């Protein structure tokens, strides 16, 4: 029972980060029709930016996180303006290819700039944990909770922060004037223009929002008590199965897909070795891609996506 609850909480925490990353893809996709493969690099840059503000400049973790979100938002906005905007009207495939190039460029930059020393983000949680109904022990930097339920503080932090930001985004989109304009732009650019909406400004805004969200994902991802490296950008790739599961153009789908993948991975991790040991070690890392393939075969537009989008 404790195992189950532990896996669920851990899965939701990890899923919150996948949800944020998937959301950052969807925000851009809905606004500009581009699948931005540079997002994983922006995520790791977000984590490094948090580290720079928190460790090198000695700021509070939460302030560092907000500053990192701002920096990556500006970077993302700049990328759209310089590399993507000129492609308006070209095929979405060429735009997607450009983003692959951007990923590689940003990834190389991040290894050059940040991998030279071990980096953490000075988060307030580390490996500290709650131990419900058991004995909390801390040895060699590991905590354990004999006979009880262990809940890491960083799991709670991830879930809370992701929930706040996702809720804020949804409320902004649903209620505010510019949220409405943004949704209108994603449905029909020409009609949005004809209503006096600054469509270019909406593109910039959506890339900025996406950058901020993925930077938050990076800063939260890094808050797990260990060091981060550029290769951790690969973590963000798991957002792709989440994206496919939820539907490429659905914000709700991104959140639900992210959470579902996170939970599924952690349940697999907990139970697969007992139930199906012949599948081998680390099978949980394969699960998202199996889900992705199944979804693509039977419901290519995902749980909440629009049917026409599947061809992209």
């Amino acid at each position: 029972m404790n195992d189950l609850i532990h896996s669920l909480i851990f899965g939701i925490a990890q899923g919150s980060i996948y949800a944020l990353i998937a959301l950052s893809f969807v925000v851009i996709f809905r606004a500009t029709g581009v699948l931005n493969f540079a997002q994983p690099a922006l995520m790791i840059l977000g984590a490094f930016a948090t580290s720079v503000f928190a460790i090198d400049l000695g700021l509070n973790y939460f302030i560092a996180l907000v500053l990192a979100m701002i920096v990556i938002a500006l970077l993302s906005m700049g990328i759209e303006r310089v590399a993507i905007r000129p492609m308006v009207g070209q095929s979405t495939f060429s735009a997607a290819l450009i983003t692959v190039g951007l990923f590689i460029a940003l990834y190389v930059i991040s290894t050059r700039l940040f991998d030279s020393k071990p980096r953490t983000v000075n988060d307030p949680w580390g490996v500290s944990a709650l131990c419900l109904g058991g004995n909390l022990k801390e040895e060699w930097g590991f905590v354990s909770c004999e006979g009880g339920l262990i809940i890491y503080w960083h799991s709670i932090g991830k879930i809370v922060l992701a929930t706040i930001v996702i809720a804020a985004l949804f409320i902004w989109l649903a209620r505010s004037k510019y949220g409405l304009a943004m949704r209108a732009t994603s449905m029909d650019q020409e009609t949005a223009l004809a209503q006096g909406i600054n469509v270019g400004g909406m593109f910039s805004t959506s890339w900025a929002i996406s950058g901020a969200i993925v930077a938050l994902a990076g800063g939260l991802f890094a808050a797990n008590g260990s060091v981060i490296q550029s290769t951790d950008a690969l973590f963000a790739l798991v957002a792709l199965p989440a994206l496919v599961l939820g539907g490429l153009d659905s914000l709700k789908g991104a959140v639900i897909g992210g959470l579902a993948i996170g939970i599924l991975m952690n349940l697999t991790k907990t139970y697969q070795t007992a139930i199906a040991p012949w599948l081998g070690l680390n099978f949980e890392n394969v699960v998202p891609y199996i889900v992705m393939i199944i979804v693509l075969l039977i419901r290519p537009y995902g749980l909440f996506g629009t049917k026409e989008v599947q061809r992209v």
Partner: protein
Amino acid sequence: MTLSAHNLEVVYEDVMLVLKGASINVPKNGIVTLLGANGAGKTTLLRAISGLLGVHRGKITRGHISVDDVKLDTDQAPAVVRAGVSQVMEGRRIFIEFTVEENLLVGAHTTPRAAIDSKLDYVYEMFPALKGRKKQHAGYLSGGEQQMLAIGRALMAEPKYLILDEPSLGLAPQIVSQIRDLIVQLKESGLGILLVEQNAAMALSIADHGYVMENGKIVMDAPAKALREDEDIQEFYLGLGESAGSLRDVKHYSRRKRWLS
């Protein structure tokens, strides 16, 4: 006080010359209609005015647009709306996933916040059918109601000039006559109206002035009354001539020279 296109030349994709020096004037407080066969370039002229050419890879290569003698920045669609020129595009183009009220609110994007509520009241009063359904998805409205919504949405921006691209397209006769009455009512409230119509009989029955466009050029420019009485117009646009029917288009073409000379 006019909305004017001055000697406008428009090219699509850098090669296709579609408008070849078209000029029109729409006075405030008047209805001007622009007639012409399919593909003449009417919608292109409207796009040029509203700053929507960019979306279609088109460009104004000569001439300009002015509103009340001030040159309009047609590279910026929002600037056009802010200058008081709103367009109801061909095909209504409402946001079907939005509610009726959300559609109207998008139309109010450039309207000061304080004025939005009274504008909403004004539109709902004009279209009671929309009022009862403001929380419904706009996609469930009938074609006529969608056209009303598209016009209402344009009015939310408090325009001085309203451009309508084929508002009667695909609508039942009694809806068309409702729209016709509405256009007259809007003119009387002080708007300048530029009306593009396939239904030339309807358009000429309410217009003060009319233009006929052929192949990217204005070939006739006369008071609506004169156009109504013109033999060619009767024959080609009002379907009154002896050769109404399938020969119309062919004849249309052969007669064009006469208008040009």
